């Protein structure tokens, strides 16, 4: 009994229902078992039906497992309330299925390793296994299963004829042997004839041909006409043709949700045009969700931000779209993702707004003129929209975005990809309008928006944003980095700062400026005698009454008041500065302000403009944050037009040998200051201008998911420091790296900088997609390096993140259709000691695979060869069935700590 109670105590924390009285009792009972409690209420006092309801509310599987271990009654109760089950292990062991999960309705056996086997052929006797499976899960309504061939599908259909929701998964190539599935549609035929209750069919991860689907649909007409949800998104590299889609539309009359990969390219015969759309609309009048995605646009690589219109115009016109919208009044979610232009879409979109009143989600790609309707509003008429994603819109101007923000006040998700006209101003005002609702933002591939622009434009929603996708284009100049390294050797002081050095592109005043960066010792400043002369605006925000005096105090300490001097970097002794282009500026905070009296006249906020010479205008906002008693220490926050903030730390060196940085920097850069600046002492003040995050304003409190796109040799080390400094809730990161590393002779550094993400305390899941990092596998020309080195570059430091789940796509050699884990990759992954789940979307050698066994917490490992074209057999990659089996066995043999 004691054991039972302790278990119940340990699980009580994970119960999902709020502040239940029973809950509290359980706690008490557990804690005071050995003490004396006046009411020894026992958890078993709860009547069985109540307990059963409680059990059914527990969603966390591990808690459920723990509950089932408590005692026999609990075990029975738990099993009888368990409705979802996801099985792992090898598919060849199906005959050893547990029989206890009788009430499972939602079964997922797609995670069972399909290595080497088709689902049922692996079994000693198909009939017995099928019978056994049927016995084990008699009530399955929702099924996810990995099937290799027609036989599997047929048996599935026989076992579970009453299944309602079915997801098929296959990443092996479609069988082409005559006896198995030569004729198109043979594979799915029996499924669509037998499973009469089928309402949802998801083939989005089922590798086959588009030709397979229409005949299968026609063959099982009675089933397909009752289908409500059909997902045909990425089953083949090619999209569906017009004729095929028409057949599907005719067969599936009562579809409510349709997701199809289409072929919109007008250059091809039978591509999708107006006629197809009209036919679709006429046949499937009940559609609520319609996603038509062009095959070339699905999962497309990031385009060139400079790209304008697509090469072709789609066969889709305003009239066609209007008819479509008129015919589908129930539409709630529409995605028309094309790779071809649809011009002047505004009119059609007004028709959409007029006809589809329930529309809440909209996704458009290559639609132009979104806001040029007859009433000049276009898209903005869709006032009920909650999620909007616009891709590749050539003429989406700032005003258009603002109009949309006005017109669709309920937007919670906003996606803007490849909008070449959009600038920071537009984004800013749009975000400001939507600041109350917006929780999910994607801004990518907009040529006029730098990462910093986006981050600063998102200021109003910083505290409420939950999901964010941006391009990470920080200082991706390899040479700058290398130069900074050189500087590091020269001057340690500089080295601390070179980490945060970014190039400042001042050629465009409005948005080109990327980062502040300068860290300047007094000694350096002495060498910079020549003020280049720019107009500087200083703003002082004072938080305390004494601030003014502090300010004066500084001035007293100055020998001769000077100003903030933006100086060109060329005169610097550090070679790093030379590498920054001449237009870029390094700010040197040199001298101060003469007319401090103005501060008083303006109250706590004073603005002062001091004209030095002709030149650019910079605005420097100084916020004094520190307690004024700390007379010799100041923090000035310097804000530039780019919206980034820096802290300026001024403290007097002579008085403090071991200076404590007055501000608590979380990012760690600032703390690493040292005293021994060459020649710094004589000047009286050491001035450090530091890029940092102001904790109060830069905290992304709700951000749980961050998605990044990074160019191949891009730098991520700085990301946590430039604008995403504090993300206490960040759990999940998606990182997509893209580019051709063959253009570089070698990686720019030893490590990419994954370590820097370790400062996000809650990060647990990472999806690291290097599949579009293209390089040479196994062999490469002289002067280049193969992918193993690049893999080492990218993965270095991953062991410092406390990840529990990792989805990893190794870099690939597309010409060879080769994507595999290399020796250093496997080595580095094997040091991530906290990993529980690891999915590798590629192949690897057995001995590399075995290195992963060093991860003591590892439970789920899967090797998924889910790249296209799929490998035709296990022999065509490095992994063999036997190797994989040996690995799975040794993984299963291990004891799991919990």
């Amino acid at each position, binding site marked *: 009994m004691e054991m039972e109670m302790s278990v119940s105590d340990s699980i009580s924390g994970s119960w999902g229902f709020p502040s239940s009285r029973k809950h509290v009792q359980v706690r008490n009972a557990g804690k005071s078992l050995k003490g004396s409690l006046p009411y020894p209420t026992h958890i078993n006092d709860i009547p069985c039906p109540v307990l059963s309801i409680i059990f059914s509310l527990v969603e966390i599987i591990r808690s459920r497992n723990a509950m089932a271990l408590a005692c026999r009654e609990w075990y029975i109760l738990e099993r009888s309330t368990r409705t979802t089950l996801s099985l792992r292990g090898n598919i060849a062991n199906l005959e050893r299925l547990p029989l206890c999960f009788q009430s499972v309705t939602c079964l997922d056996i797609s995670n069972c390793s399909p290595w080497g086997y088709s689902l049922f052929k692996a079994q000693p006797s198909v009939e017995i296994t099928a019978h056994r499976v049927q016995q084990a899960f008699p009530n399955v309504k929702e099924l996810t299963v990995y099937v290799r061939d027609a036989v599997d599908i047929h048996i599935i259909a026989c076992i579970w004829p009453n299944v309602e929701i079915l997801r098929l998964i296959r990443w092996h190539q479609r069988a082409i042997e005559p006896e198995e599935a030569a004729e198109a549609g043979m594979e799915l035929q029996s499924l669509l004839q037998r499973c009469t209750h089928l309402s949802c069919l998801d083939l989005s991860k089922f590798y086959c041909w588009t030709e397979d689907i229409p005949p299968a649909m026609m063959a099982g007409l009675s089933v397909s006409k009752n289908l409500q949800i059909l997902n045909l998104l990425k089953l083949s590299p090619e999209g569906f043709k017009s004729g095929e889609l028409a057949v599907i539309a005719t067969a599936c009359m009562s579809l409510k949700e349709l997701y199809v990969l289409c072929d919109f390219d007008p250059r091809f015969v039978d591509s999708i045009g107006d006629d197809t759309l009209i036919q679709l609309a006429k046949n499937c009048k009940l559609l609520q969700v319609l996603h038509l995605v062009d095959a070339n646009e699905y999962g497309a690589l990031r385009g060139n931000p400079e790209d304008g219109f697509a090469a072709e115009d789609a066969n889709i016109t305003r009239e066609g779209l209007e008819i479509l919208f008129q015919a589908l009044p129930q539409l709630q979610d529409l995605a028309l993702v094309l790779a071809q232009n649809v011009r002047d879409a505004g009119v059609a979109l007004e028709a959409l707004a007029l006809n589809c009143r329930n529309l809440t989600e909209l996704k458009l790609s290559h639609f132009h003129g979104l806001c040029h309707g007859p009433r000049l509003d276009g898209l903005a008429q869709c006032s009920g929209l909650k999620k909007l994603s616009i891709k590749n819109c050539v003429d989406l101007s700032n005003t258009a975005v603002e109009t949309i923000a006005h017109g669709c006040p309920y937007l919670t998700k906003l996606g803007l990809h490849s909008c070449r006209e959009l600038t920071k101003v537009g984004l800013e005002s749009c975000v400001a309008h939507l600041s109350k609702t917006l929780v999910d933002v994607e801004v990518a591939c907009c040529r006029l928006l730098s990462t910093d622009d986006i981050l600063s434009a998102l200021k109003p929603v910083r505290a409420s944003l939950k999901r964010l996708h941006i391009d990470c284009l920080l200082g991706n100049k390899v040479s700058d980095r290398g130069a900074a390294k050189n500087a590091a050797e020269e001057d340690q002081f500089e080295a601390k700062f070179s980490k945060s050095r970014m190039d400042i592109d001042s050629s465009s005043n409005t948005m080109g400026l990327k980062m502040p960066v300068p860290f300047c010792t007094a000694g350096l400043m002495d060498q910079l005698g020549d003020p280049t002369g720019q107009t500087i605006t200083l703003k002082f925000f004072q938080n305390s009454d004494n601030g003014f005096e502090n300010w004066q105090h500084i001035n007293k300490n100055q020998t001769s008041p000077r100003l903030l001097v933006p100086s060109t970097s060329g005169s610097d002794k550090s070679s790093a500065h030379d590498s920054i282009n001449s237009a870029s500026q390094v700010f040197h905070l040199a001298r101060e302000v003469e007319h401090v009296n103005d501060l008083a006249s303006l109250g706590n906020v004073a603005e002062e403009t001091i004209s030095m010479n002709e030149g650019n205008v910079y605005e420097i906002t100084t916020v004094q944050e520190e307690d004024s008693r700390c007379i010799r220490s100041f923090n000035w926050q310097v804000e530039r037009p780019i919206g980034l903030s820096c802290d300026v730390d001024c403290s007097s060196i002579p008085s403090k040998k071991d200076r404590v940085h007055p501000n608590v920097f979380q990012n760690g850069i600032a703390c690493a200051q040292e005293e021994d600046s060459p020649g710094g002492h004589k000047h009286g003040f050491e001035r450090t201008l530091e890029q940092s995050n102001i904790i109060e304003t830069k905290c992304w409190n709700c951000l749980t998911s961050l998605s990044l796109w990074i160019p191949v040799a891009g730098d991520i080390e700085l990301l946590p420091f430039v604008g995403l400094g504090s993300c206490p809730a960040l759990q999940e990161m998606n990182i997509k790296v893209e580019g051709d590393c063959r253009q570089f002779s070698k990686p720019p550094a030893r490590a990419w900088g994954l370590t820097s993400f370790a400062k996000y305390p809650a990060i647990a899941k990472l999806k690291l997609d290097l599949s579009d990092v293209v390089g040479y596998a196994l062999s*490469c*020309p002289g002067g280049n390096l193969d992918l*193993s080195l690049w893999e080492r570059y990218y993965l270095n430091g991953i062991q410092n993140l406390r990840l529990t789940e990792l989805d990893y796509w190794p870099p690939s050699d597309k010409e060879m259709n080769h994507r595999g884990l290399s020796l250093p990759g496997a080595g580095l992954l094997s*040091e991530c000691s906290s990993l529980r789940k690891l999915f590798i979307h590629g192949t690897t*050698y057995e*001995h590399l695979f075995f*290195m992963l066994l060093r991860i003591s917490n590892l439970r789920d490992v899967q090797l998924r060869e889910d790249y296209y074209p799929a490998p035709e057999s296990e022999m*065509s990659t*490095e992994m063999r069935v036997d190797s994989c089996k040996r690995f799975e066995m040794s993984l299963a043999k291990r004891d799991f700590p919990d």
Partner: protein
Amino acid sequence: MDYSVMWFENQQGRSAMSLLDAHNVRIVGAGEELVVLSHGFGTDQSLWKHVVPHLVDNYRLVLFDMMGAGTTNAEDFSFLRYSTLHAYADDLLAILDELEIESCIFVGHSVSGMVGCLASIERPDIFSKIITISASPRYLNDINYFGGFEQDDLNQLFGAMQSNFKAWVSGFAPLAVGDDLDSVAVQEFSRTLFNIRPDIALSVAKTIFQSDLRCILPQVSVPCHILQSSKDLAVPVVVSDYLSSSLGGKNIVEVLPTEGCDRGTCLHKLVGGFILNRNKSEMLLTAQSHSKFC
């Protein structure tokens, strides 16, 4: 593309099964003539995946993994046995015997080319022809012989492999890769070696670089077709000339320019290229091309 994959059934009893299993033997194709495709070290039979589709219609192809490849069970690898290339030749013959092959064309890439030559000395009757791709009887330079590798390069290679080995033994991540080495030739050669388990890699690398098969070349009586990339970083072109002049039987050298692709010596391109681009598969693999032998 329409070819069937056929697993060899157990006809010879258990030991036969395990031999073929251990080497992951696979037979594909519908043709009459048998072609054995043998990969080099550090790779596996997937090396041929781009070649197979072009041959399956006209030939029966035997594919297998050599012992020590990353795809075989490391437990089966005997360090003592596989310290010479003769062991690999014995394996090859054993497989061919197991399959009761009486005559075949042997295609060997890199070190496999020499393994094929060794096997043919023992059983010249089985091999109607040997095609070697980037083969070399000796990698180290010697007096009057240019193999492409200096002892210093090799020392560096062994050093890197040893450090990987030590890390591996002590439970750390082996992180050294072929690209860390200075010499381009060693880089190219060792790239795949680093994909083998560190202990096996060290042993295999030593075996390869200690081997000197120059003396056995005159005993090879089977006609040989020597394919060589003009820009091969690991095997200099002169080696193919040396092979040609030393081999005992009829032979022909073909130096393939790797034009149109900037990876100098991509072995895949070479393999695929000689069949794909130049469409020479017929000529190379059928009897008519025998007339070309000198």
